[in-house]
């Protein structure tokens, strides 16, 4: 992209690991085909069970099948890396090469890993394994129990020396990490900043808690997992979890002059707003205000937006509130699809994985279909249904929301 404005902030690299595909090419193809991969979850520690007894739960989600780390990652690091850590390294590996970061001064690179308490399943398994013999708990537990072990491993493997830490914002973490990355670059703190939406590795405890809270589905589709994830559909009964890890690299146009760098989009604006509310319920006012603020910071009129990638989890109240918001802010004309309907709700990763989906659709010139959108709660929106459609996105709005009244939005313009 030729930009006469060297201070424009660009997305110059992406990485993605998901339950439907690894890497940008596979992921794009899977999204456009409308593929999903929901089932009763099998990863050890995801269902309640005692000893060798059969599990008493059947939590549904989308799990990454047959994952193996890319070549070249140090075995010594991988040995004690959690699933979240391994997948972060793999996704970052892809984004690093995509953005050609090997030629950037390490002190001028920053890293924000979005997500908190992302390694729950690994911790739970360690607790359960060592309950009767706690003195033999591995020493590395003392290092790796913290989420910052993930940013630390990324910093070591890729030689990142500017800054590297984690950021907790519930289901908005991934997008908040991207916003933090944009701010770090805009301020000049670093030249390149990487945002990783960490894989939220839930244990059966979190699944149970989220089900009891009424946030996670599904009762109606408990026996038909492939139908359970249905954001904005009349029959939705909660979000369905999906493992993913998304990475975006951002930098100023003036810095993105390395050979082979091919920017995906310009980050035109963003906003964060809080509802001053500790609870999980959404706020129409908060969502409206954050989108208006983001549009204003981008200098975009709502009519000029042609695509919205919503938070769209499949929460009945959340979905209804979000559609009311989209109408109120004047975005109802825009094409709308639900990445979560295909990859599940990545929780900490969601905002970052969906930003990746947004820019990949920009590059592909196509929009992916919504999964299970049989009867939209509002039929008058411009849904992408049934199959992928040809459309060159010019301007997009990405929305992420989180428990405890977090609202954030970002405006992107395609390269």
């Amino acid at each position: 992209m030729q930009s006469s404005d060297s201070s424009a902030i660009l997305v110059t690299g992406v990485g993605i690991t998901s339950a439907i595909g690894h890497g940008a090419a596979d992921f794009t193809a899977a999204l456009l085909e409308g593929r999903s991969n929901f089932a009763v979850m099998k990863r050890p520690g995801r269902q309640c069970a005692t000893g060798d007894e059969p599990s008493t739960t059947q939590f549904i989600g989308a799990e990454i099948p047959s994952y193996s780390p890319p070549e070249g990652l140090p075995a010594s690091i991988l040995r004690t890396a959690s699933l979240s850590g391994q997948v972060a390294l793999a996704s970052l590996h892809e984004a690093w090469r995509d953005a050609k970061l090997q030629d950037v001064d390490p002190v001028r690179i920053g890293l924000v890993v979005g997500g908190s308490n992302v390694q729950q399943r690994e911790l739970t398994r360690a607790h359960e394994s060592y309950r009767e013999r706690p003195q033999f708990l591995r020493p590395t537990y003392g290092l790796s129990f913290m989420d910052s072990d993930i940013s630390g491993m990324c910093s070591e493997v890729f030689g990142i020396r500017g800054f590297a830490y984690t950021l907790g914002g519930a289901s908005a973490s991934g997008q908040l990490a991207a916003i933090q990355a944009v701010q770090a670059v805009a301020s000049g703190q670093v030249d390149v900043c990487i945002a990783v939406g960490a894989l939220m590795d839930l244990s059966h405890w979190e699944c149970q808690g989220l089900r009891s809270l009424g946030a996670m589905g599904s009762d109606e589709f408990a026996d038909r997992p492939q139908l359970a994830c249905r954001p904005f559909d009349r029959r939705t009964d909660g979000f369905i979890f999906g493992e993913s890890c998304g990475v975006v690299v951002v930098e100023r146009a003036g810095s993105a002059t390395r050979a082979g760098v091919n920017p995906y989009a310009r980050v035109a604006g963003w906003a964060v707003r809080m509802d001053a509310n500790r609870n999980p319920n959404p706020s129409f006012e908060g969502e409206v205000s954050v989108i208006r603020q983001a549009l204003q910071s981008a200098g975009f009129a709502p009519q000029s937006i042609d695509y919205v990638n919503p938070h769209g989890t499949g929460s009945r109240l959340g979905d209804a509130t979000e559609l009311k918001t989209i109408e109120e802010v004047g975005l109802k004309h825009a094409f709308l699809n639900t990445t979560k309907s295909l990859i599940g709700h990545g929780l900490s990763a969601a905002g970052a994985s969906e930003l990746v989906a947004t820019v990949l659709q920009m590059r592909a010139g196509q929009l992916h279909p919504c999964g299970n959108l049989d009867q939209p709660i509002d039929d008058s929106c411009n849904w992408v249904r049934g199959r992928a459609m040809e459309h060159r996105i010019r301007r997009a709005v990405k929305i992420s929301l989180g428990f405890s009244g977090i609202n954030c939005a970002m405006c992107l313009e395609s390269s």
Partner: protein
Amino acid sequence: MNKEDIFAIVTRHAQEVIPALRGHQFQPNQSLRELGANSIDRSEIVMMTLESLALRIPLVETVKATNIGELVNVLHAKL
């Protein structure tokens, strides 16, 4: 359990923690540190060994050992 058995356990765990040591011919007068184990690696190797031996002693009782042979002696004496 004799010292050879303990030596085999220590070296097996050393190879798990440091894959580059697979195929290495360990000698009792070698130290884990010079074989490339940093302090966390060494703690892991010793802890895995204690677990394999079901030997409940504080890690601190093993730190005086300056090589694998001395470590084996310490562990053997506690069994």
